[in-house]
C-alpha cells in the first residue's frame, strides 16, 4: 500500500497516493494539464514535454505524466513561461512534419491541431523543416502517412503493451527518427500485425488512418484503452 501525500496544485490543496503522478492527481481534481504523448492505459514516456509543470524548490521543470506526487509538493501547472514553452513545442511539431490540415483526414479531430487552438497558436514562427517523408499504404485496411507523424510513440506502445504484437518501433535518430513496422518492412507484408487497428485508433493525428477516409472523416475512438487497462488491472 502506498502512503497518501497532501500537496498543492495551483494553490489548491489536493491529496494523492504516492504512486500516483502529478497528472493523475491533477485530473482527479479537475485541473487540466495539456498532454500529447500520454494516453491513459499505456505506459508513460515523458517525451512530448507538453505536461511540464513548475514545482516549488526545484529549478527544473518536471513532466507531470511521469513525476510522482510527494508530500508537501507545491505544483504550478500554468504560467506565462509554461504556456510559452508549450506553444513552442507544438509549433515545433507543425514545423517538423508536413501538416496540411486542410487536406488531412483528421482535420477537425486531431489532437495536435486541437492543441494549437487551445494554446492560441495562429502561425508558426519557427523554421519549417519540410522533410521528405513517405506514405505506406500497403496495408489492406490502414495507411501510415509519416508526414503527419509526431513521434509520440503511442502506436508503438499500444501495439506492444495492449495488442502484444510489437509491430511498430522507432528507427533512426534526431529529426531522422521514424516509426517503422517490423524491420522497416512494408506494413502490408507484416507477419506480426494482427490488423486490430489499435494503433490507428490511438494515434493522435492523421498519421494513421483507415483507408478510404476523406478529408476530416477520420475520427479516433480510443476508449477501449481505458477499458482494457482496467480489466487487466493495469490502471490504479
Amino acid at each position, binding site marked *: 500500500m502506498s502512503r497518501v501525500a497532501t500537496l498543492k496544485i495551483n494553490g489548491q490543496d489536493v491529496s494523492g497516493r504516492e504512486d500516483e503522478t502529478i497528472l493523475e492527481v491533477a485530473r482527479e481534481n479537475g485541473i487540466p494539464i495539456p498532454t500529447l504523448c500520454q494516453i491513459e492505459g499505456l505506459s508513460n514516456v515523458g*517525451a*512530448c*514535454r507538453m505536461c511540464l509543470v513548475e514545482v516549488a524548490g526545484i529549478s*527544473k521543470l518536471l*513532466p507531470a505524466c*511521469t513525476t510522482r506526487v510527494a508530500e508537501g509538493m507545491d505544483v504550478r501547472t500554468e504560467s506565462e513561461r509554461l504556456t510559452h514553452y508549450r506553444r513552442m513545442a507544438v509549433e515545433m511539431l507543425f514545423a517538423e512534419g508536413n501538416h496540411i490540415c486542410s487536406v488531412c483526414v483528421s482535420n477537425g479531430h486531431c489532437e495536435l491541431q486541437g492543441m494549437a487552438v487551445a494554446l492560441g497558436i495562429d502561425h508558426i514562427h519557427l523554421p519549417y523543416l519540410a522533410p521528405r517523408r513517405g506514405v505506406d499504404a500497403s496495408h489492406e485496411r490502414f495507411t501510415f502517412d509519416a508526414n503527419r507523424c509526431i513521434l509520440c510513440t503511442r502506436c508503438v506502445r499500444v501495439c506492444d503493451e495492449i495488442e502484444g504484437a510489437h509491430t511498430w*518501433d*522507432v528507427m533512426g*535518430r*534526431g529529426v531522422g527518427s521514424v516509426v517503422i513496422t517490423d524491420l522497416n518492412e512494408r506494413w502490408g507484408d507484416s507477419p506480426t500485425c494482427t490488423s486490430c487497428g489499435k494503433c490507428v485508433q490511438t494515434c493522435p493525428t492523421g498519421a494513421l488512418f483507415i483507408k478510404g477516409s476523406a478529408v476530416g472523416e477520420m475520427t479516433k475512438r480510443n476508449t477501449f484503452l481505458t477499458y482494457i487497462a482496467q480489466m487487466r488491472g493495469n490502471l490504479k
Partner: protein
Amino acid sequence: MNPEELHSLAEERREALDQFQHRVVVCTGTACQAAQSRKIIEALDGIVKERGINGRCTVSAGGCRGLCSAGPMVAVEPTDVLYQGVTPDDAASIIDSLESEPVKALTCDTSAPFFTRQKRVVLEYEGRLNPESIDDYIAAGGFSTFVRILTEMTSGDVIEQIRQSGLGGRGGAGYSTALKWSTVAKALGTTKYVICNGDEGDPGAFMDRSVMEDYPFKVLEGMMIAAFAVGAQEGFVYVRAEYPLAVKRLKQAIRQAEKYSLLGNNICGTSFSLKLDVRLGAGAFVCGEETALIASIEGKRGSPRPRPPYPAESGLWGCPTLINNVETYANVVPILREGAEWFAGIGTERSKGTKVFALSGAIVNTGLIEVPMGISLREIIYDIGGGIPNGRRFKAVQTGGPSGGCIPEQYLDMPVDYQSLAQVGSIMGSGGMIVMDESSCMVDVAKFFMEFCMTESCGKCIPCRVGTAQMYRLLDKISQGRARLQDLEVLEELCDMVKHTSLCGLGQAAPNPVLSTLRYFREEYLAHIVDHVCPAGVCKIAHEEIAL
C-alpha cells in the same frame, strides 16, 4: 587469492623485473600505435636478440605518455630516459646507447613544463605498465588495496573514505561520488549492479579511452571496490565499439583477474562475489547518458527516460545500480591507498583531486594531461600546452564538448574547477579541451557542435529533436550571411526553450555552445548578419540577396 599470496606474487614479479638492467617500454597508446609503435617493438626486440643481451634487457609494451603529438614514445628504465619521434630505424642506436649517453637527437626533455606542471593520480603509472599483464600491475602494487579493503574494511568505511576525499564524478557534472555510493548501498534490494561508463562520445575526447587502454586493471580494481561498497554482485564496463583496443584489454584484464580469483565467487575467501563483463555500445553519444546506457545494456533502444527514479534506486533491470565514469573509478584506488586526506589536499575548496584533459586544437603540445583542479587555463594552455603555434593569437578555449562552452581570453586566469567553469557558461565536462586561435569563426564553432547534437539527438523528446535541427538551420543561415536579425532572436528563444524543456542532458546542454559564443562573441554573429562578412574568413558567405 589471499593477501599473502598477492604480496608474494608482487615480490616475485618485481624480482623478475629487477633482473633486467634495462627495460625499454614502448608506448602502445592509440596515437603511437597509429604511428607504427608495434614495429618499433619488433625492431627493438630484433636488435636485443642480435646483440645477445636478452638476459639483461627487456622490451615491453606500455601506455600513453601524454605527449602524443611527439610520438611514438619510447622510455628506458630505470634511467628514465624518454625518447620521442622514434622510428623502427632508431632501434639500434637506442639499444646501443643503453650503457652510455642517451641518443641526443631523440631525447624528450622531461623537465619541460609539459611534464613538471602536471599532477598525476589517475595516470600515476605514466605509461610504464604493460596494459596486458596483470603481473605488471600486481608488481606495481595493484589489487593490494582491493584485497586489503575486502579483508579489513566495511562498506561504510570505504564510503566514508570516499566522502572525506571529496571525489566528484568525472563524467561531467562532478556529482558527489560518496553520495551516489551510499544511495546505492542503502537502496532496498538484494540484486545490485555497478556500471562503468566508458562511452566517451564527445568529439575530440580520448581521456577515458586512454585510461581504459593503459590501465584496465586499475579501472577494474576501482569498480571492484565500488561493488564491495555498494553491495553489488555483478557489473559491466560499457565501452563504445569504436574502442576495440580498450575492449580487448578490458576483456583480457577481466579474464586474468578471474584466473587469479580476484573476480568470481567468494573472493579472498570472503562472502563477496563479483562478476564483471564488457558491453559494447554502437557509438551513439546519447548512450553515455546513464539511463540510455542502461537501456542499451538491457538490449533496448538507447533512449533516455525521465529521472527520477535515478539509477541508484531503479537502474539496470529495475535494480539499484551504481554508474560512474571511467576516470571516477580510476581515482578510487589512489584515494584508498594514499588516504582521503591526501586526495582532499589536491585541488580547490570545492573541487578535489585532478582532472585529465585531452588537449587539442591550436596548441603546440596536443595530448593527454592530468592537472590539479584549480590550475589556471593560462597555465594549461601556455605552460603545459606550450602556447599557440604559428605566431597566432589565442581566441577561445572550448571545454565540455557539445555540452560545454567557449571561454574567451579575459578568463584565462580563472581556476579550472566545476564551479568556475559553470560560472562563465561552460562546464568541466568529461575533459575535452579544444584551443582556438583567431582563425576560428565562433559562429562556425557553434554550428559544428549544434550539428553534432542534432545528429546525435535520440529523437525522443520534441525540444531536442526538433529544436537542435532548427537551431542548426538558423546557424547555417547566419554563417552564410543570409540571416535577418529576427533569426537571431528566434535562435535565442530556441536556446532557452531547448535548455529548459528537454528530457535529458543532451538536449538541456545542446544550446550551451551557442549561448556562450553569443555571450562573448556576439559581434561575430552580427558581422555575419548585418555586414555579410565572416571576420575569421571561415564561412562561405552567400551573395544572392535572399536565397529562399
